[in-house]
């Protein structure tokens, strides 16, 4: 505390009024900050990841007259995911590699401080799908920055000075980080990226005061290293039993098996459970790793204090398509069959929207949220297993065979772009991809620190498979998680790769790859507002107030995996790849460059 007082005094002297708590726990601090609708104090605004703000000054009746209030260039070119964090009169903006952090005074939009970490550029090529970074966490006067090179840093929120830093992984072995950490009680939680490099995934909890490791739970391997209790950790309400992971792999493949943890984390304070998903097993060639490959492709519910897994649910046993299970789990209380249930809702890469009881892991609903999904007919509600269609099984079709017209594509019906939930409408608002693929697995050798992919892919609009004459690559949908039904669906030319925002004004915001911030009616999906920002949007739309006025902000800056289909040049042909041609058209709409655009009513 002593070290913080001078900087706090300095900050006050400089006219800053960051809400620095005095003697409460971080949990209380973060809870209080996120309960205050004027802030946007964590990635999902609240622990439940709902990305819902009760603010209603901007609403369905007036959003059409929204205007740009101010803009801010980050000076970084690569894909900008995540969104701005606002606490009191201060905004914190993060960037992709080199992972700059800016503290911005909302009164005059001047920079209070900027932190630019020094990172070895050799980490850049170890990041499979662009150098994205999804955001910061805040607690007790500290900003938590998860750098690409895996260094987790606590910065003084008032000065930008480093308080502590800790190394979370080894980039030379393929480990990197892209995820936003979260803080619960006295711990900051982070994961690891590198599934395409054979990295073994884990969730780690560090003490927020000194950075010491409190616990680490792996996704694969021996029970004790996964913090799994064979008797008490359940899957589909039954104990998982001993060696649940080891028995589902051949030999030592689990050691380089992936199950990385690069998505979003949510938390239920009443149950004290932290929720997240694990990524694909390595390699992308399923033939070389027989078995269910547990616990890749799995939702974990862990005790926040001890890390012990309460329950797990594996969406895609023995993945054959790269359907990472990392997408967020949104916590909501919704009525199912007349009973209000505490649920977690998860829109998986595999095209199914899952609703589970978040206390027990009981599977309640599993339905396709993109009707094009064809790799499985349905999920067996007794076993929880998807019923795989042989025609689209890259394992059954075999190595060196091009399995065609699989829906969705490897980037999933939804990727990292988080959905939103409005308690006013009871609906989930989901940014989706509408893309299918051909997938041909083949043998590759594992080399530490090198990509470990093992499949060739082609991607194209889902309409080429469904034969409905459409060529859109995305949809923005409203989803009823109790029934497992699409309520409305708005087609988008490109994949919707931006995090959604639902508000008390009964509007929903999202961004498009060609750079438009859009507002739609929460009940009908009707477009109410659209503005072309400087670059394609893969960031999340956030909202806050300053001096009593509501603002909406979003980072533009195209990139990420969505940008991989975006050609730098327009030469060459696309025979037989109409779809890639469609993505390729993206560069007629937008170019690189990170800019925050802030909107308000006139």
């Amino acid at each position, binding site marked *: 505390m002593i070290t913080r007082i001078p900087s706090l005094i300095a900050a006050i002297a400089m006219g800053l009024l960051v809400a620095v708590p005095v003697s409460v726990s971080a949990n209380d601090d973060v809870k209080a900050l996120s309960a205050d609708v004027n802030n946007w104090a964590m990635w999902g605004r609240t622990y439940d990841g709902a990305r819902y703000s009760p603010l209603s000054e901007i609403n369905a009746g007036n959003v059409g007259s929204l205007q740009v209030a101010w803009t801010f260039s980050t000076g970084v070119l690569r894909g900008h995911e995540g969104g701005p964090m606002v606490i009191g009169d201060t905004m914190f903006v993060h960037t992709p590699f080199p992972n700059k952090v800016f503290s911005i005074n909302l009164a005059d939009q001047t920079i209070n401080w900027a932190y630019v970490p020094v990172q070895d550029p050799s980490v850049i090529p170890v990041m499979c799908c662009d150098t994205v970074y999804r955001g910061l966490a805040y607690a007790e006067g500290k900003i938590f920055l998860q750098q690409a090179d895996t260094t987790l840093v606590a910065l003084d929120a008032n000065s930008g000075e480093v308080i502590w830093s800790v190394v979370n992984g080894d980039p030379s072995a393929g480990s990197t980080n892209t995820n936003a950490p979260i803080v619960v009680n006295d711990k900051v939680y982070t994961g690891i990226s590198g599934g395409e490099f054979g990295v073994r995934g884990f969730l780690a909890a560090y003490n927020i005061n000194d950075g010491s490791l409190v616990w680490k739970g792996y996704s694969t391997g021996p029970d004790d290293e996964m913090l799994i209790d064979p008797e008490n950790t359940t899957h589909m309400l039954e104990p998982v039993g001993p060696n649940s992971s080891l028995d589902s792999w051949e030999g030592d493949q689990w050691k380089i098996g992936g199950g990385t943890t690069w998505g979003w984390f949510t938390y239920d304070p009443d149950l004290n459970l932290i929720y997240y998903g694990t990524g694909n097993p390595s390699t992308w060639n399923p033939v070389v790793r027989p078995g269910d490959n547990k616990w890749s492709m799995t939702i974990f519910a862990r005790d926040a204090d001890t890390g012990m897994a309460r329950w797990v649910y594996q969406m895609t046993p023995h993945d054959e398509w790269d359907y990472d299970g990392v997408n967020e789990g949104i916590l909501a209380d919704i009525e199912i069959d007349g009973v209000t249930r505490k649920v977690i809702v998860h829109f998986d890469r595999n095209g199914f929207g899952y609703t589970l009881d978040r206390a027990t892991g009981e599977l309640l609903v599993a339905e396709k949220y993109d009707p094009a999904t064809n790799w499985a007919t349905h999920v067996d509600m007794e076993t929880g297993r998807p019923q795989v269609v042989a025609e689209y099984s890259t394992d059954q079709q075999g190595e060196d065979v*091009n399995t065609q017209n699989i829906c969705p594509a490897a980037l999933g019906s939804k990727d990292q772009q988080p959905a939103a939930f409005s308690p006013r409408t009871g609906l989930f608002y989901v940014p989706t991809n509408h893309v299918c693929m051909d997938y041909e697995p*083949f043998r590759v050798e594992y080399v530490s620190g*090198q990509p470990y992919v093992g*499949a*060739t892919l082609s991607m194209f609009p889902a309409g080429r498979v469904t034969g409905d004459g459409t060529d859109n690559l995305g949809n923005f949908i409203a989803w009823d998680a109790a029934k497992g039904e699409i309520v409305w669906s708005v087609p988008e030319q490109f994949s919707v790769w931006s995090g959604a925002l639902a508000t008390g004004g009964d509007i929903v915001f999202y961004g498009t790859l060609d750079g438009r911030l859009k507002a739609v009616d929460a009940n009908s999906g009707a477009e109410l507002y659209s503005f072309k920002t400087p670059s394609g949007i893969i960031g999340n739309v956030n909202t806050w107030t300053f001096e009593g006025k509501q603002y909406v902000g979003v980072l533009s800056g195209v990139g990420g995996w969505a*940008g991989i289909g975006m050609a*730098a040049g327009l*030469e060459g*042909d696309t025979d037989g*790849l109409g779809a890639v041609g469609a993505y390729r058209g993206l560069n007629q709409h937008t170019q690189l460059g990170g800019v925050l655009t802030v909107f308000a009513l006139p």
Partner: protein
Amino acid sequence: MIQKFGVTVAGLVAGAMIGAGNLVVTAAAEGAEPPPYEGHIQCETEGDLSTCQIDLWLTRGYRAFSQCQVCHGLTGDGSTIGPSLVRKLREIDLDRFMEVVVNGYEGQIGVMPGWGTNPNVMNYIDQLYAYLLARADGVLPAGRLKRYDR
């Protein structure tokens, strides 16, 4: 084409010298001037690339290219991360190609890793070069191609 072949031979020698121990020299006989993909592509209708098929040798080049896709785009035409290889292969010779693939390259926006120790690339470096050159020369379409020698 004459110039390209001269470069190819020089490049293969240079490539072998910079540590690509697994290089398989498959260039045509001395005195001939075919590009390295010649003899590996068959097109049913001349001028219609959609009718082209390739052999296993060139398929291995396409598979090695899967390592490149994550940065250079699904078709190799570039992405927000890396430049178009279709265009690059028109600009650089095999020497330069080998140097960059083996040792990596630090660009203005991106950083390319060195692949010199990766058998999934280096064992098929000839095929990769031939595949990319075929794309650059406009004799193969983007995407996966059927094999005529299955």
